[in-house]
């Protein structure tokens, strides 16, 4: 199994399948808010484009999950129920708080760039420039007590 970062496909099919499950475990769909699952926003492609070298570490950590599934349940990670997958993932995260953290960080970056997610959190799906945003100018009468107190700068 090649883990070469030059490869177009740095993960095996099994690793890809586990990646999708893990992404869904990280951020599952929330249909009431209109937010998709993180498995459905193109995280693999996002990482491929920006930092494909991260797949070396991500692949290794995915293998750990699969190995734990085999040693504990004699099954591949993909064959476990969601409940048992959650338990297996939590077990590794409890042992190492940084387990799959690089993936998680890149996943949220990609997730909050997805147009469905941006819309769900109330953002327009466009760059900030050139349309910008409106911000309320503010109620200046709130400054009355500050004015009433008078000069506070220290005379020299």
């Amino acid at each position, binding site marked *: 199994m090649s883990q070469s970062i030059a490869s177009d496909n740095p993960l095996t099919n099994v690793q890809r399948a586990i990646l999708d499950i893990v992404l869904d475990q990280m951020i599952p769909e929330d249909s009431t808010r209109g937010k998709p699952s993180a498995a459905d926003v193109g995280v693999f492609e996002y990482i491929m484009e920006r930092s494909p070298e991260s797949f070396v570490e991500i692949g290794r950590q995915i293998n750990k999950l699969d190995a734990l599934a085999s040693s504990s349940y004699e099954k591949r990670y993909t064959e476990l129920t969601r409940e048992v997958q959650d338990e297996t993932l939590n077990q590794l995260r409890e042992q190492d708080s940084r387990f799959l953290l690089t993936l998680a960080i890149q996943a949220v970056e990609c997730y*909050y760039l997805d147009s469905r997610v941006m819309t769900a959190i109330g953002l327009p799906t466009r*760059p900030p420039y050139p349309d910008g945003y409106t911000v*309320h100018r503010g109620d200046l009468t709130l400054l009355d007590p500050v004015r009433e107190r008078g000069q506070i700068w220290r005379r020299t």
Partner: protein
Amino acid sequence: MPNDVVDVVIIGAGASGAAVAWSLAETRMRIVCLEQGDWMNPATYPSNFQDWEVHHGETSAISPNHRNRDADYPINDTESPIAIVNFNAVGGSTILYSAHFPRFHPSDFRVRSLDGVADDWPIDYFTLEPFFAENDRNMGVSGLHGDPAIPEHQPPLPHIPLGRMGETIGRGFNKLGWHWWPSDSAIITEPYEGRGQCLNLGPCNTGCAQGAKSSVDISYWPVAQRMGVEVRTNCRVNQITVDSKDMATGVEYWNADGVIQHQRAEVVIVACNGVGTPRLLLHSKSARFPNGIANRSGLVGKNLMLHPWGGASGLFAIPLESHLGPQGCCLLSQEFYETDESRGYVRGYNLQITRGSPPIATARYGIASGAIPWGTAHHDEFEKRYDRSVHIGVCAEDLPEEHNQVVLDDVLTDSNGIPAPKILYQTSENSMRMLAHGTARAVEALEAAGAIETSVAPYPIRMAGWHLLGTARMGTDPERSVVNEWGRSHDVRNLFIVDGSVFVTSGGVNPTTTIQAVALYIADAMKQRLATLFD
């Protein structure tokens, strides 16, 4: 001919170089500015792109060591708890700055007389007052008249919007009876001098695509160029040259083609900032100046002041639209600006209330800190945090100490082989006490405003060495200072320094408006003495 003798050569096209060039331009002298960087193209700034929060571009890192552009020089800051951040281009560090623009106070120039520490400046606030006003007009500054914490002045443009966030925090300060005010900001809130107004994009610290943030490449430089000043880009100065009579003869520099040149000049003005300037002076060694030009006092590079920075964040129960609007500019509080000995330290600090985190930063921080969990609870926790956070920065006055200094690194060099600056800096006990006090007050203010959760960042914050001051101090005594009271080197009578290096003390506020007022004041002093400039 580029290397004919010119009247004035200015080194560095940042905040201070631009101001001095503009002011001297009216003399019709031949003025050339040499800048190691190039002009920036605002169309490349991240806010042009939907992925702006993660956009990798030329302006996406504030440390030159991470950014590593051709124009950058490395800085060895391993022996400092605070890393140096800057930008090298036409516009200098104003390309990235937040444009928070409070002035120094009158008391900042009199700390020895008032509080018995450091030294008084040889000039005072009221000498600089007309230059502050001139700079406000030239830069395009927004603000609200009547702040009782500073002598009366009228910013040329209306204040930046407070938003719901600003109102909420203002109410908190009112509950405590503490001062607060909308910050003076070098951001235009209305169309001004051909520039479009602020659109509340947010990411001012990666460059303003709209051109509303008053970086000097779009405020001062176009005017100075129209008045005849020549800006030569991609030109890195190696040394200031000197003759046997201790007069500067010009500068040696690499031009854009990498060819070494000598630009002869009647007057040399250094504007490379509080780290770049001492580096250049220390590197300009000669038989007359074996320890670096203009360094007979031995003080070049010493007394580095960095404004140790602290901060607290608060989370509110309701959406505040806090991620919209100029990131670093909203309100300030100067309640704790002056000395009160009962607090356990001398001098004081400014509280800078800045906007909240945008979505990816919120999620990234939440995931990394564990505050936002994995699983179905992700959505609820994200919602609780996004658009509801507010940050308060604590800008602590740093007192001058000779052991805090810029020296030349023995090994590290830039791409031309010039030794890199090395920072030897320790945060003083006084600063640490001040930050403890300031972060506790920031939490108190956030709680009074209704924050349901607060946190304090470990201080001093490392990536916060953005104010670079004190390394070629001003004074009347040549033994105790590098330049005189109008910016001229005590040792070299045609060499001037106009950046934050000349500061005697650091004040407790962001320094750029004061740096530029000092640069304009020095230029004015030069104009008044043109016939006797070298006497």
